[in-house]
């Protein structure tokens, strides 16, 4: 009888991959359809991110670099949503820049929608500088001579004609530099921006990049970090604005549990097959 179980377990090594795909689909779709929100315990780095934004007060300016595209929007857009809502609710102003050419339309549409919902005016309360190539060059230029690299905003209006941007002079304009990025642009902001901006830098990243940036927290190069959907959900919970990330987190959690089960089951099947095929003593 014991051997039957062993054979059954060993046969799992030959499982059709379409069954695995179906399991993944179910693990994601069912929690999303159930729309069950979840609660998380915020990590210290997420609290750092939250506190840095809380220190921004009315009339101050936040520089937001939203460098993501359609592939990573599912985990980074909720961060931008909560951050922009927080900035606008505090009466602060927003200067938006995008260093990913594939994300311009996505970022502009999202912030425009949030600004409309908050009753904020373009040019006075927020401005979108748009995209320029060369992330290091743009990061350093924005800190020293913003009009040189961005003489006009993304909509073609002269920067000096916009009330918010007319007074920009560089590194000391901002109370906070927030970077939400999926690629190497986040590293560029830390490397080239840390010493140049007289403002704390907070970073929102894709889940896979999060561990790479932990060292920057210890050296105080960044003031806070939220990584992946989990980080976005923690930030939503800290701000008391439950949104897309908290809703989607249950689906991600279920997918993680499935991965854990598959790792354990895959190893059990592997060793069962090895035991079954062992040479006779």
């Amino acid at each position, binding site marked *: 009888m014991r051997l039957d179980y062993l054979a059954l377990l060993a046969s799992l*090594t030959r499982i059709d*991959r379409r069954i*695995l*795909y179906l*399991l*993944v*689909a179910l693990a*994601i779709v069912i929690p999303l359809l159930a729309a069950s929100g*979840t*609660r*998380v*315990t915020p*990590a210290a780095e997420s609290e750092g991110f939250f506190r840095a934004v809380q220190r921004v007060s009315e009339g101050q300016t936040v520089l937001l670099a939203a460098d993501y*595209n*359609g*592939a990573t*929007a*599912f985990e980074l857009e909720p961060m931008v949503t909560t951050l922009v809502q927080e900035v606008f609710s505090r009466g602060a102003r927003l200067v938006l820049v995008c260093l990913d050419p*594939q994300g*311009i*339309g*996505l970022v*502009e*549409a999202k912030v*425009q929608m949030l600004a409309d919902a908050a009753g904020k005016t373009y040019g006075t309360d927020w401005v979108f500088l748009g995209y*320029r*190539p*060369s992330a*290091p*060059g*743009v990061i*350093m*230029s924005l800190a*020293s*001579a913003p009009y*040189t*690299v961005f003489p006009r905003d993304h*909509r073609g209006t002269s920067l000096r004609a916009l009330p918010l941007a007319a007074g920009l002079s560089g590194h000391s304009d901002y109370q906070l530099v927030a970077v939400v990025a999926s690629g190497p642009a986040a590293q560029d902001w830390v490397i080239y921006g840390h010493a140049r901006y007289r403002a704390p830098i907070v970073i929102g990243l894709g889940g896979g990049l999060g*561990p790479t940036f*932990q*060292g920057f927290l*210890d050296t105080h190069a960044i003031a806070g970090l939220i990584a*992946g959907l*989990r980080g976005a959900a923690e930030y939503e919970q800290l701000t008391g604005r439950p949104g897309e990330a908290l809703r989607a*987190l*249950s689906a991600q*959690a279920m*997918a*993680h*549990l*499935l*991965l*854990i089960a*598959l*790792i354990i*089951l*895959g*190893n059990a099947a*592997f*060793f069962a097959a090895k035991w079954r095929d062992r040479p006779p003593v």
Partner: protein
Amino acid sequence: MIRRLSRPLVIILGSLAIAQFFVPHQASRWVEARLLDWLVLLESAALVAGILALARRHAARISRGEGPERALAAVTLGAMAFMLATGLALGTGPGSAFGAIYLSVLQPIQASMMSLLGFFMASAVFRSFRLTSAPATILLVSALTVLLARVPLGEHLVPRISMFSTWIIRGPNVAATRGLWIGIGLAACATGFRVILGIQGPTGAKRS
């Protein structure tokens, strides 16, 4: 002539780029602003050159290729031309046709491509993540710990799992990452100096 000029140009401009980090003088700031302008300009030109190279490559595929290769190249070029024409003719702002195509076609395609990774990952961890050696075991135990700690249910299933996960991320992970960053930094400095001193070309080729 251009080749002969490139070495002194690299030496002068490279030295100026380094010097402005250490010289807080007005003149240094002026030089820095000009260098940064040129950096952005050069990368813009590189972007245009990249687009032209892509168009040329796919045009060659259409003229020489067969079957699906030719069709895919035609789709690429056609999509590029269509988006270029739409953007130039009707603008690229919110609510424009360009923006609508981007949001309803390109963005879902990118999201779908990314989401496929989840399916492949599930298949890969089932078939390949095996306890076959000591390093593989360490990797597997670390991955399981971090994965479980990221799940809200994890703390209920294994008490203090977050503590172990945080230790893995803040301890060994940060140590390894710092080592990598330091290595990358030193290698970048060494390569930069080799280029500036004319020992090595900017593309990595050793100068004769």
